[in-house]
């Protein structure tokens, strides 16, 4: 089944930032509950935007979110010290967001991840920047899976983010990532594919229709998770429907449940 990572608890979002600055726990808890009700399978928590306050903000957010979250959390920070603190607070096995092949980040994250029981998002980014071809994405994914396997993280706990790029700057950016996802899944059938989707439509009008059709195509290629706003009803309905069409919904039960609750409509 497709896994939705709810992206809303991020201090770069204005309302979240002011709630965090004012220690308004009610706002945060309410947002988390709404994401869960909408079908989020994970809640991402990012406290990076108030520079100099990340550690205390992350601690406060987790203290308030954890007792109210039925689903596991995604600890979203580039700083292993903050991740270590956050990891120690976790009751359910968390997901770590993220490691990449950028040397500084890679060298900082590997010792942190070693020996930990967790899931991890692995970005296909390296010191040369964004990948430039399908083969480039696959090569980076291959390296990430092997490096993570070598420190004891099983393939099934790895979530590769192939880095979706805007089709407005190059019409081949859609097929580039679709082909890469197919190849990665062929090479590592157990690995997960996740990431943001809305980059695909950057620079174009009517972005939502692009995002919805793109997620469907990505799911067919093998994407089984995404970092999105679960309160976007249309994209959630698209995902649940596509999941059924791809054979991941026994007796169409989830689809029907979605229709009855009003979450899915034609």
């Amino acid at each position, binding site marked *: 089944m497709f896994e939705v990572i709810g992206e809303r608890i991020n201090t770069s979002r204005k309302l979240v930032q002011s709630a965090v600055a004012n220690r308004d726990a009610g706002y945060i808890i309410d947002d988390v509950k709404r994401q869960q009700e909408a079908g989020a399978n994970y809640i991402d928590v990012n406290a*990076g935007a108030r*520079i100099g306050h990340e550690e205390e903000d992350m601690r406060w957010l987790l203290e308030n979110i954890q007792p109210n979250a039925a689903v596991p959390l995604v600890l979203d920070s580039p700083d292993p010290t903050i991740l270590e603190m956050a990891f120690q607070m976790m009751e359910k096995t968390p997901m770590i967001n993220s490691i990449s092949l*950028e040397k500084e980040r890679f060298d900082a994250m590997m010792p942190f991840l070693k020996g930990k029981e967790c899931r991890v998002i692995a970005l296909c980014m390296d*010191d040369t*920047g*964004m990948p430039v071809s399908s083969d480039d994405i696959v090569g980076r994914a291959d390296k990430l899976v092997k490096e993570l396997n070598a420190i004891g993280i099983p393939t099934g706990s790895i979530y590769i983010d192939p880095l979706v790029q*805007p089709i407005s*700057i190059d019409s081949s950016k859609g097929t580039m990532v679709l082909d890469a996802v197919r190849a990665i899944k062929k090479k590592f059938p157990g690995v997960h594919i996740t990431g943001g989707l809305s980059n695909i439509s950057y*620079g174009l*009008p009517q972005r939502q229709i692009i995002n919805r059709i793109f997620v469907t195509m990505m799911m067919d290629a093998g994407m089984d998770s995404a970092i999105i706003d679960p309160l976007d009803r249309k994209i959630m309905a698209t995902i649940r429907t596509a999941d059924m069409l791809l054979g991941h919904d026994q007796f169409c039960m989830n689809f029907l449940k979605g229709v009855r609750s009003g979450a899915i409509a034609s």
Partner: protein
Amino acid sequence: MSKFLNIQNHLIAGEINELILDVKEALSKGVNADEILNTGLIGTMDIVGEKMQSGEMFIPEVLMAAHGMKAAVEILKPKLSCDKIGSAGKLVIGTVKGDLHDIGKNLVMLMMESAGFQVIDLGVDVPAETFLKAVEENDADILALSALLTTTMPMMQKTVELVKEKGLNKKAKIIVGGAPVSQGFADKIGADGFAPDAGAASKLARSLVAAEQTGC
């Protein structure tokens, strides 16, 4: 501008074959190549920039127009009075250290070239010292800094500080941009300008060097 109406329309529509015919026709009628470049092509790219800013035109259309512009300039090149390409000024551009994003930077670059700037691209993950060296060596008129991450915005500040410390900002105006960057941030770190998108950036750069325009 009216005598360049066809050039304008075809450049905006991204109809490159027609644009080339327009440029050849203007030349055969005896229209000065410099005028075709400055009024016809660069003038139209200003309109493209404005239409991008206002949301009437979208990135792929702007890219098409920039390609058209390049093709037209190739036709004009042998007939220009001097090396007019890049006569708007020299611009050093890059994404600051720690940041590997280049899409926005590349768009800005394209618009700057279309606006007549000679662009020196330092790429991504550029240390402050490298910016400094490039500004110095090229005697740049504009230094354009890009950042997409909140975590790399402080590097912008550091770069601006270093450029000022060396006194290079007297000639080179510093402009900043990128998703998390704002006018307020630009003011705070002492940059000379901020642009929210590529269309606005080329306009800003032109206005900053306008006072020192000398032609060729």
